[in-house]
């Protein structure tokens, strides 16, 4: 289509479009069509946010990676120009190192990198396989239809992260509920504050226990840093909170939304169901991460020193939003980008972000998803959606995209 995308009939051709934009309800797996249009128009575009501020949207893969890899942008939500997501985010307590810049970010992140090394995560694979098999046994023994989110997608990452941190799984209902509130964009500041305080209080108590009596878990190693004087009590709690919530909703949404996407692409599901090749399974995980890009709404940063992006100088004090969901659909990088093709090499996707904040839990997320995608559809080959696609409720209103419920039968 060669026609101009912005016509004078709009409220002035220069008015910045509003962000975030809505998806096309007929294409729940695709980013908002308006974003693709902006990407076609150029690498940079000013948009207007809920608070009237006008940060720059970085629309293409190459520039997105360049900016996320640049030390002149800051992840600190208190920096002038930082594009906040909703009223509740401004002025809230910091969520540990995900909202910090180097060198402090690096100092804190390195305290918890050890358990996420590839080989350590590999060693957990048999335990994750047992968890996945056990949940499938339970589903098969139970009534149909069943909500796959509640029965399968959420318990897996919960069990795994609880195990890693050393948090008793019996307490998972409390933080599952609270995490849901924390990632819901429509939550009021009061609701979000209360949810955060409840989990934080719980984690602080767990850390205090380990200060007295260390165990062999990640919370104990965080507690150890407090003993050494490297972290304050508050910093230790924030760090535990970050790990608990970052590893929770994300992976769960990839399990449920990924399953729905595969059910809607039966040829791809068949490939996955019939393969015994771990390479194809790993490739399917990368492609689903690319295609679904659940951390929608963009990676956001404040510019702290003038920086040139695609020939344009962005001034210190301005905000930038790297919309990685369309970076992952950039035709310069991914051929036929809107097609789900589990055989393509999608490893260069930016679903885990890029730069120093790139997802710390990615090896764990990958392994969990590999186990799930290589097990669920083999063990329940007739798995199907138990409602119309139209009736599935998508998480348009959450920081992390996915489905609220996924009724399935077999």
């Amino acid at each position: 289509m060669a026609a101009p995308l912005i016509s004078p009939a709009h409220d002035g051709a220069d008015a910045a479009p509003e962000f975030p934009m809505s998806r096309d309800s007929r294409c729940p797996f695709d980013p908002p069509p308006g974003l693709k249009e902006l990407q076609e128009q150029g690498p940079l575009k000013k948009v207007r946010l809920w608070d009237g501020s006008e940060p720059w949207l970085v629309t293409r893969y190459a520039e997105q990676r360049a900016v996320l890899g640049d030390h002149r942008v800051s992840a600190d939500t208190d920096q002038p120009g930082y594009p906040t997501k909703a009223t509740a985010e401004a002025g809230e307590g910091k969520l540990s190192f995900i909202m910090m810049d180097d060198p402090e970010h690096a100092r804190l992140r390195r305290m918890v990198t050890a358990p996420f090394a590839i080989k350590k995560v590999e060693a957990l694979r048999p335990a994750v396989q047992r968890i996945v098999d056990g949940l499938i046994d339970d589903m098969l023994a139970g009534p149909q239809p069943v909500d796959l989110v509640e029965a399968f997608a959420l318990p897996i990452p919960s069990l795994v992260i609880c195990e890693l941190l050393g948090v008793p799984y019996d307490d998972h209902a409390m933080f599952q509920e609270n995490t849901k509130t924390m990632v819901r964009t429509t939550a009021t500041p009061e609701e979000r504050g209360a949810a955060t305080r409840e989990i934080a209080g719980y984690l602080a108590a767990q850390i205090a226990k380990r200060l007295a009596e260390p165990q062999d878990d990640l919370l104990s190693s965080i507690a150890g840093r407090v003993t050494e004087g490297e972290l304050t009590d508050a910093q230790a709690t924030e760090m535990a909170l970050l790990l608990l919530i970052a590893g929770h909703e994300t992976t769960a949404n990839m399990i449920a939304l990924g399953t729905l996407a595969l059910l809607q692409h039966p040829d791809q599901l068949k490939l996955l169901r019939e393969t015994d090749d771990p390479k194809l399974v790993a490739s399917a995980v990368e492609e689903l991460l690319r295609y679904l890009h659940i951390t929608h709404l963009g990676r956001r940063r404040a510019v702290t020193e003038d920086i040139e992006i695609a020939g344009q100088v962005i001034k210190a004090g301005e905000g930038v939003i790297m919309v990685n969901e369309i970076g992952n659909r950039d035709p310069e990088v991914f051929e036929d980008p809107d097609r789900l093709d589990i055989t393509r090499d999608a490893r260069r996707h930016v679903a885990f972000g890029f730069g120093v904040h790139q997802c710390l839990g990615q090896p764990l997320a990958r392994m969990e998803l590999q186990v799930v995608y290589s097990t669920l559809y083999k063990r329940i080959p007739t798995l199907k959606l138990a409602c119309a696609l139209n009736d599935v409720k998508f998480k348009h209103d959450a920081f992390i995209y996915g489905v609220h419920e996924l009724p399935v039968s077999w």
Partner: protein
Amino acid sequence: MKVELEADKCVASGQCVLAAMEVFDQDDDGIAILLEEQVGDDQLDNVKEAIAVCPAAAIRLVEQ
């Protein structure tokens, strides 16, 4: 070709290990280490992939 790794830039993403297991590993803290500095032709593509996916620009190939 020779691989160079700037370990103080590394953010322990593990991406290089996944891309080129014969060339990269991680220490006890998850920070990348080099298993071999000289890479033969058979490993060249994998190392290039590691460079492309490293989020911290910590890896380089140098001509000798």
